[in-house]
């Protein structure tokens, strides 16, 4: 197996006494697509900034392409493409100019940068927008421009911090499609997200992060297998009865060895056969307003591991 391109061991970042990242370890292989899944404040961006060599770690070991960011920051950054959580495009320049100035930061010749800029604008589906003002772009277009900018140096590793947060479903799908292409071309991706569907779509492997520590690690399928059942039954009883009925179900189903989660708006029953559970519930005389049997997702894994929902 080739040496991993990112190695983090017991990575810690403290702000005063508060540990935003509290001993995280992971490895990312070349060509792999690796995710950090976690809720707000989990320490995802902080980890990304350390990997991106723009934030000095408090302790632990970190190697990017075999180099230490404390010593070889510029060298490491020359091999990275960075899509930060909030876009920092230059709004005083036009779309194409943003790529031109950024390409120069990597010491690339003007001609090469100009040629790549045109290719990347096509890749990002921004043809015809070359001379547009950045402010005039939609959220999804800005995000694609940021990704195009991150690719201007043909990076070995692409860091994506919540690439699709705040985008509408269609814009997200366009973006996923672009990222999928990059993955197919063998670009190593490190991405953070608090969307389980995004993690399931894009990540070969991921870690679930909460409060600066890793709760679990594996492929999406492995994590679901290890931490949840095959199916989940979701029933709603209306907000007035939810808690009360939920408690009753928790006793009844719990006695059968099934895990039950009572959320404010619905009750989740974990079972390998959701339909059978629904039959039992109706036989017991309960009338859910709605019911749904679905496959377990990373959301359920997260709920299991932390007792909280991913998106609050």
């Amino acid at each position, binding site marked *: 197996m080739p040496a991993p391109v990112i190695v983090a061991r017991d990575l810690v970042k403290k702000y005063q006494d508060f540990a935003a990242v509290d001993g995280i370890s992971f490895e990312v292989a070349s060509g792999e697509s690796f995710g950090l899944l976690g809720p707000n404040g989990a320490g995802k961006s902080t980890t990304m900034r350390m990997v991106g060599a723009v934030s000095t770690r408090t302790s632990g070991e970190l190697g990017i392409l075999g180099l230490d960011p404390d010593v070889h920051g510029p060298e490491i950054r020359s091999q990275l493409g960075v899509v930060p959580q909030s876009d920092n495009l230059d709004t005083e320049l036009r779309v194409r100019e943003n790529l031109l100035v950024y390409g120069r930061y*990597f*010491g690339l010749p003007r001609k090469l940068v100009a040629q790549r800029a045109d290719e990347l604008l096509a890749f990002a589906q921004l043809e015809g927008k070359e001379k547009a003002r950045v402010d005039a772009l939609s959220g999804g277009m800005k995000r694609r421009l940021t990704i195009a900018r991150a690719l201007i140096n043909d990076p070995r590793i692409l860091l994506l911090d919540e690439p699709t947060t705040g985008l509408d479903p269609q814009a997200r799908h366009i973006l996923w499609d672009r990222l999928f292409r990059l993955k197919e071309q063998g670009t190593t991706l490190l991405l953070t997200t608090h969307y389980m569907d995004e993690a399931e779509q894009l990540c070969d492997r991921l870690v679930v992060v909460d409060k600066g520590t890793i709760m679990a690690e594996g492929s999406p399928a492995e994590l679901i297998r290890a931490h949840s059942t095959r199916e989940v039954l979701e029933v709603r009883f209306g907000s007035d009865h939810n808690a009360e009925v939920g408690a009753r179900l928790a006793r009844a189903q719990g006695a059968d060895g099934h895990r039950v989660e009572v959320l404010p708006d619905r009750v989740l029953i974990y079972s390998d056969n959701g339909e059978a559970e629904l039959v039992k519930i109706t036989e017991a005389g309960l009338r859910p307003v709605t019911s749904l049997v679905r496959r377990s997702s990373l959301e359920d894994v997260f709920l299991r591991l932390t007792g909280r929902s991913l998106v609050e």
Partner: protein
Amino acid sequence: MNVTTGQSTDAARAIAAGRRSRRWGAWYVTEHRLRMMRTYTGTVVIAGIGSPLLYLYALGVGLATIVDANMGPDAVDGVSYLVFVAPALLATAAITVASEEFTYPIMLGYKWNPTFTGAAASPIRPVQIVDGVVYSVIIRMLVNLVLFYALMVLFGAAPSPVGFLGIVASLLGGLAFGTVIMGYTSTLQEDTGQLAMVQRFIVLPMSLFSGTFFPLAVFPIYLQWIGWISPLWHATELARVFSYGYAEPIWLTLVHVAYLVALIVIGWAWSRRIAVRRLNS
């Protein structure tokens, strides 16, 4: 296993790729800044020609008529009022550029449109971002000052053949003030009116008490200290030495230079330090 062997081909490639930015990074930032300034080239040129024209005409011709009529052709300092005031206006032009370029654009880069954060994610180092900004302002300042000086010559306001050295003096003054202001602006997390205060309580008094329109000596001694600490006064006096051979002891001329250079060194280093701290959090 050591995580940072630095032995792989990946590492070797990174080290090769980082070389150019390590050396030239600041200039890439300058390129970026100049491209941004291009969006207001019109303003730069119009302000660069318009404001000296206005000042030279209003003060150098208008006010000078009264001053010279009352006090003779050797009105102030043994020269006409126009010749007296012109080098001061030149130095003031540098301060004006500095107060524009080292305030809001810095706030913009750190906060409002964080292009500094963007640059810091590339191989560019924080200190190079600061250097690049300074270089770009030097270039813009030179454009303004050369235009201004050309107009001074046209107005017959720069009698000495070495008067053009006033451009260098003004540049030093602009940078001395500007780099310190950049350091201060860099420390701001939020602009809750501080930048407007700089204009009102630093730039404006500085232009009134720096021997611009009349010699500092006309003020009572308890107001003259404003001039002594003012980079504008030092730059103005220096520009006058070059422009019409204003007589002052040589040690004082050296003090002007030393003071301005010291401020530049301090302001520049301060700005660099804050950039390192702010862009690596």
